[in-house]
């Protein structure tokens, strides 16, 4: 009983990563930039788990779980920043957010 090779999973991971890159570079709403960042992280996770299966070593799955925790932390801080920006009545557009001054 054999499924597809690991190379197929890696191709899906590469496509996910490229799609996420496109979203981060192309979109202007910071919410969608964060969503595209999640797609990039999940592409990396899929590659980690595919290699864990290839080598029969579950350390890759441990790494994937750590990436998930870091992604959750990143979403919390990112959404907090977006809500803070929105409450200051600043337009939610990454091109207009050119000042770090709070």
């Amino acid at each position: 009983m054999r499924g597809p090779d690991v190379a197929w999973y890696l191709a899906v991971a590469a496509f996910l990563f490229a799609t996420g890159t496109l979203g981060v570079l192309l979109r202007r709403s910071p919410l969608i930039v964060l969503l595209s960042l999640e797609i990039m992280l999940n592409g990396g996770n899929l590659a980690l788990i595919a290699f864990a299966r290839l080598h029969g070593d579950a350390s890759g799955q441990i790494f994937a779980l750590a990436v998930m925790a870091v992604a959750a932390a990143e979403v919390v801080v990112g959404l907090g920043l977006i809500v803070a920006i929105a409450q200051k009545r600043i337009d939610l557009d990454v091109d207009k957010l050119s000042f770090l001054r709070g």
Partner: protein
Amino acid sequence: MGNVVIWAVWVLAAFSCLASAVAVVSFTNPFYSALSLIGNLSSLAVLYLLLSAEFVAAGQVLVYAGAVMVMFVFVTAYLGGRADAPWAGGPSWQAVGAVTAAGAILLEVIVVIGLKAGGTLSHEAQIGSDFGSPHQIGRLFLTDHLLAFEITSVVLLVAAVGAVILGAHSRRSGTTGDLVHSEEAGARP
């Protein structure tokens, strides 16, 4: 027979994963983007199951498609989700550059996989039935990867404290009118 079922499930999961990823990037409304990311994460969990990573698949559905996406949908609904066309706004060379960069990354990875695919990538290791189970993951977390486990918990704590501070700060300064005006003036290019 088993092969055909595995391939069918794989093709279904992979294509729904890729289609919903493209949908996230191309939807105009951020709310629809967040909803299609939930589909993307769920179909990724199916791919994880096919790679015998049961615990990670369960964590993906619970943490990602559950908790994180609830937060995303909540914030998107709170902010009203201003429509934002993917190709609109900004000079056109930015869109061309974005597509070129993403295409270059995709091409690079696919070429590397293609160069390696005939050799080492098709010999999967033999695994026991314990592989990827909560039992094995828990033992690895508390023995070989204890430092990573503890650092992850510190990262989560710092992120929670940071989010609380950000929320309190924005609520306090949001009520002072002159600060808002100066911010608006500063935000204009």
